[in-house]
Each structure stands twice: as structure tokens, then as C-alpha cells.
């Protein structure tokens, strides 16, 4: 499983989520994540049809989208979602 994180430097919610993800990535070293600045990656924004930020897209082993979250999410909730999909 892989998580694509979309944000923008002007977005307050993205700033809130940055340290939360940093903590999760530190705890779950096996987790693969990738951050994309929405303004610099318009093609990916278009591909995934993202309308709000921050946006977190969970992909399976075949890069198929299995889950999506928007906005501020508590660290514990994110860990629950990750654990639910980790074997996919």
C-alpha cells in the first residue's frame, strides 16, 4: 500500500497535517508515502480529480485507488485507516 499526499503551501489544513504525517512516517517505517504540491503537479491533480486539500489517496500494490481522505484527520484515525488497508 502507498499513500499519495496532496497539499498546497497556501492551505492551512495542509500545514496542520504535515507534522501528523511526519509522526506516522516515523512510527511506521514500512509505510510508503509521497507528497505532491498541487500547484506544481496539475497533471496529477487532474488525473485523480482532486477538488479540496489536503487530500490523501491510498493506493494498493497495483496502484489502484482503494481509499481517499480530505481535510484534517486525527493521527489515530489515519493509523486505523492505514492498518485496515496495509495488506492490500
Amino acid at each position, binding site marked *: 500500500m502507498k499513500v499519495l499526499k496532496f497539499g498546497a503551501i*497556501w*492551505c492551512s489544513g495542509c*500545514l*496542520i497535517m504535515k507534522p501528523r504525517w511526519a509522526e506516522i512516517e516515523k512510527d511506521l517505517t514500512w509505510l510508503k508515502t509521497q507528497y505532491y504540491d*498541487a500547484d506544481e503537479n496539475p497533471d496529477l491533480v487532474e488525473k485523480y480529480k482532486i*477538488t479540496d486539500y489536503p487530500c490523501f489517496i491510498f493506493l494498493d500494490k497495483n496502484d489502484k485507488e482503494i481509499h481517499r481522505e480530505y481535510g*484534517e484527520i486525527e493521527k489515530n484515525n489515519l493509523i486505523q485507516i492505514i492498518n485496515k488497508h496495509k495488506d492490500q
Partner: protein
Amino acid sequence: MFFVFLILFFFTNKVFANEPLNIKFFYGKGCPHCSQEEKFLKKLETEHQGKISIEKYEIYNNQENSNLFNQFIKQHNIQAAGVPLLIIGDDYILGYENENTTGAKINKTINLLLYGEQKEEDDNNSLYLNLFSKKIDLKSVSLPIATILIAFVDGFNPCAMWILIFLITMLINMKDRKKLYILGSVFIIISGFVYFIFLTAWFNFFKFIGYVYWIKIIIGIVAIISGILHIKNGLFSKGECHVTNATQRKNIIDRIKTTLGQKSFLLSILGISILAVSVNLIEVVCSAGLPAIYTNLLSNIHLSNTQYYSYLSLYVLIFMLDDLLIFFIAIKTFEITGISKKYTKVSSIFGGFIIFIIGIILILKPELLMFGS
């Protein structure tokens, strides 16, 4: 000689008894509340034919009347005086809302002086709230509290916030503290000033048009919708940033980058000032609802100009609080911080509820929002 005195005594007494009640009406040409009161007074003159005499004094264009007005406000020790002002005997009535509120008050005062009718205890205009078995008169919920609440909710409007976050992030990335202090301050001060001008324009618009029934209804409806949206936002929003006007946003980002890239510091300051004015003018459209509701509320209350503009300044200060907070944290830590949704949730729900109630009152019982003026 004695008979002459006796006749004179009865004559003068008779004249005094029949003398109509003198009412002085101070007004200004072009003042909408004054013209409404003037119409009402005309009606009163017909109702109390011969029993009242109304003297009219226009004070905007007549210096002599203006002096007389000043003399009366000193004599009656009237604070924050303006027109319309009605002097009935030793009483005075400042301002005019409508026939049912100020009109009823004028009628009662006249009836008391003419026929000695006791004034009824005017309790109809009060709205009570039973909270923790304590009776709270909502009229005493003062204007400063309303100002702070509405401005606070307005301040968390995400439309304008992104520009400041972007600017501070860019300045931090440049690793230049001096630029962060000066350019950040210039942006915040000018943004506040532009918002103040914007509020002043709304305020003077409402002050100029005065009491117009359908405008009050429109503002009431705007307040109800705005209140519901804020409550909904507080309950269901996850703190996401919506992408609207992507092209406009890209233009602003490019302008910030160009401005910060200027070699001359003075040119950067100038560029940021122009940017602050222009982006805030664009962004004010996005948050027109709450300023319109607030300034409409304020325009219906009788205060002095200093008080009016102090309230508008207080509104701007509270409105800018979140920007100031982000800026001061950035100065202190040299890092950019966002304000989490959990802090704005309560203000959105509570503020939204207050704005919703204001909307209902504006439509059903607008006189309650005059805060006892």
C-alpha cells in the same frame, strides 16, 4: 386696578392652559430617519390638532439652528447627539426607527404631557433568556460582544487567509528575518486598513439609506443563510481548503513571487502594499455577508462618530486576530503554522447561531437590535 389684575390673571392663565405643547424637531436635510420622523410628526399634528405645535430646525445648512441644537444638547446633557432629535418639554427623543417603536414613545410622551396619562412600563421590547435560572435581558447583551463575535467568525474566513500563509512561507523560505518582519507587517497593516475602508463604505451606505424595510429583510435573510452555513461548516467541515478560482490564485502567487524577487527592498515594500490592496479588494467580495450584517446593525444604533469608528476598528482588530497570531508565531519560531479546525469549530457553530438569531430578529422584531438606543 384689582379687576384689571384679576382679568389679566385669568386671561394669562387661560392662554397658558390653551397654549399648545411646544415640540422642537431638529433634523438634517437628506437624513432618511429625519424625513420618516417628519412624516410621522405631520400625522401627530393632525391627530392632536391645536394641542401641539412643532417647530422645525434644519441643522445641516442653517448655522443659527445648528447653534440652537448645540445649546439644547448641552442643556439636556445629551451624549452622542445627532439628528433627528425631538425635544418635548423636559424630555428628548433621539433618533427614529419607525412608527411602532420610536413613534409609540413620542406618542406616549406627548399624551403624558397633554393629558397626564401614565407611561406604561415598556417591557414589550425586551427579550429575555432564561439561562441557569437567571433572567438575562438580551438587550443588555452589549454591542461590544456582538462586534467581537461577528468579527471573530468573519476572521476565520479561509478566503483571505491563504495569501498570508503563502506570503509568510515564501518569506521563511528566503531565510531573511528582516524581510519577514517588515513585509509581513506591511501586508497585515494594509490588509486591515483595506478591510476598515470596506466596512466604512458598507456602514455609510446603510447610514445614508437609513431604515428601508426591504433592505432589513434582505440583510435578515443573508444573516439566516450565513448563520446556517457557518453552523454547517462548524459541524461537518473537515478543514479542507476548497479550490476555487485557480487562475486567479495562480496570478496572485506569481505576483507574490515577482514582488519578493525584487532586488530593491523599497520596491518589495511597494509591491507588497499594492498586492495587499488589490488582493484584499478581491477577497472582500468573498466575505461580504458578515460585514453587511454587522454594519447594518451598527448603523441603526445612535452613537457618536468616534464610537462608530471605534467599533469598526474593534471589528477589524478581531477580524485580523488569526492573521496576527500566525504572523507572531512565524516571527517567534520562524515556521509557518496553520490554525486547526478544532479551534475554529466552536466559533463557527456558536457565531453561526448568533448570526442566525440576528437574522430572525432583523425580520421579526428589528427594534430589539437597537441595543437600547
